[in-house]
């Protein structure tokens, strides 16, 4: 694996420079690249940016995992970080979990360690509240324990896990909406009888609904608003079905096929949701540019 640094201040291609200035302003562009440390895998940068001024064989100051999750190209970076289990070994790990014997706990612990942050991150996106996301993440792993024997290895383990998380989050959000239909933000719901398909009962929790602007917690939302970048704030205005496709694509680096499996929709639907999201985002950006100094 080799990385190189794009010297954005001097090395920006003229046409790209113009393009970025028109859309973002050059300061924003440089900041964006610096926030991502301006680092791309060589093939990725060359294919998109063309002949840029670069520093070859550059030592990244961040772990390689930083690039494999969202910025770099997965196929040239190591797929396994130190201390984690390779995808091809996860199947045998699952078989250990299935045993439900004394050997199961270490295997389950490994599985939990490997996926906990990613599952939590997805639950947080869906539910907007760290405590609720944590509770739901626990339920995901509870189901993993109970249903490990149903994992046949037809999809990758991450797809299977995200599929469980997605179903639980969707049900929690539906419960939050209640029989009267969608609410503008979220509401507190009470745990109720055990739902079908062996999902565990959920504790009392506050969840976001499908409304495009989930600002149900004014204080928390205000704090989040301070933290968020302009682009992220615009993304937060999108419907959740589009936000989750953006999440799986840009944060998890998943393929169209994997995302379709997780969401239980066709590949065409995944592409269509992303396309719609991009169109709406473009519109939001044009709007925001008029008032970006105020944001």
């Amino acid at each position, binding site marked *: 694996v080799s990385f190189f640094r794009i010297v954005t201040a001097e090395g920006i291609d003229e046409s790209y420079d113009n393009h970025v200035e028109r859309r973002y302003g050059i300061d924003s562009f440089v900041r*964006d690249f610096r*926030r*991502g440390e301006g680092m791309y895998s060589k093939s990725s940068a060359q294919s998109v940016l063309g002949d840029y001024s670069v520093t070859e064989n550059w030592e990244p100051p961040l772990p390689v995992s930083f690039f494999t999750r969202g910025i770099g190209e997965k196929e040239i970076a190591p797929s396994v970080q130190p201390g984690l289990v390779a995808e091809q070994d996860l199947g045998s790990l699952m078989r250990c979990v299935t045993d439900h014997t004394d050997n199961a706990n270490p295997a389950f612990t490994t599985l939990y360690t490997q996926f906990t942050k990613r599952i*939590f991150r997805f639950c947080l996106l869906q539910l907007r509240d760290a*405590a609720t996301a944590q509770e739901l*993440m626990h339920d995901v792993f509870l189901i993993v324990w*109970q249903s490990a024997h149903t994992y046949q290895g037809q999809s990758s383990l991450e797809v299977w896990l995200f599929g469980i998380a997605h179903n639980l989050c969707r049900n929690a959000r539906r419960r939050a909406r209640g029989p009267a239909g969608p609410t503008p933000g979220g509401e507190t719901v009470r745990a109720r009888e055990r739902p079908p398909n062996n999902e565990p009962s959920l504790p009392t929790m506050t969840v976001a609904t499908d409304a495009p602007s989930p600002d149900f917690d004014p204080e928390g939302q205000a704090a989040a608003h301070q933290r968020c970048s302009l682009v992220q704030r615009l993304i937060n205005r999108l419907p959740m079905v589009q936000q989750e496709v953006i999440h799986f694509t840009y944060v998890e680096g*998943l393929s*169209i096929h994997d995302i379709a499996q997780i969401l239980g929709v066709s590949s065409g639907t995944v592409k269509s949701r992303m*396309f719609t999201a991009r169109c709406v985002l473009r519109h939001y950006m044009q709007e925001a540019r008029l008032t970006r100094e105020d944001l």
Partner: protein
Amino acid sequence: VSRDRKPKVAQDEHREIDLLLPWYVNGSLEEPERDRVRLHIQGCQLCQQEAPLLHVIQAEVASERQGEPEPAPGGLEQVLTKIKSQQ
């Protein structure tokens, strides 16, 4: 073949590639699809503008996630307790 035929084919090609751009940017496209997108970008001004923009959005979204809360410690113990209580 009418004179309008070629532009329509080119438009269809662009539409197909445009739909795939986010996954070209995230590196999950496999050959030969990835090569097809790469070649198209080389000759398409619209895609040459769009792909870097998607890169920036990707970097932005990934960067935002870095600053989000982490799962609280002790989560595994809580899950194992739940499991034991159900056995």
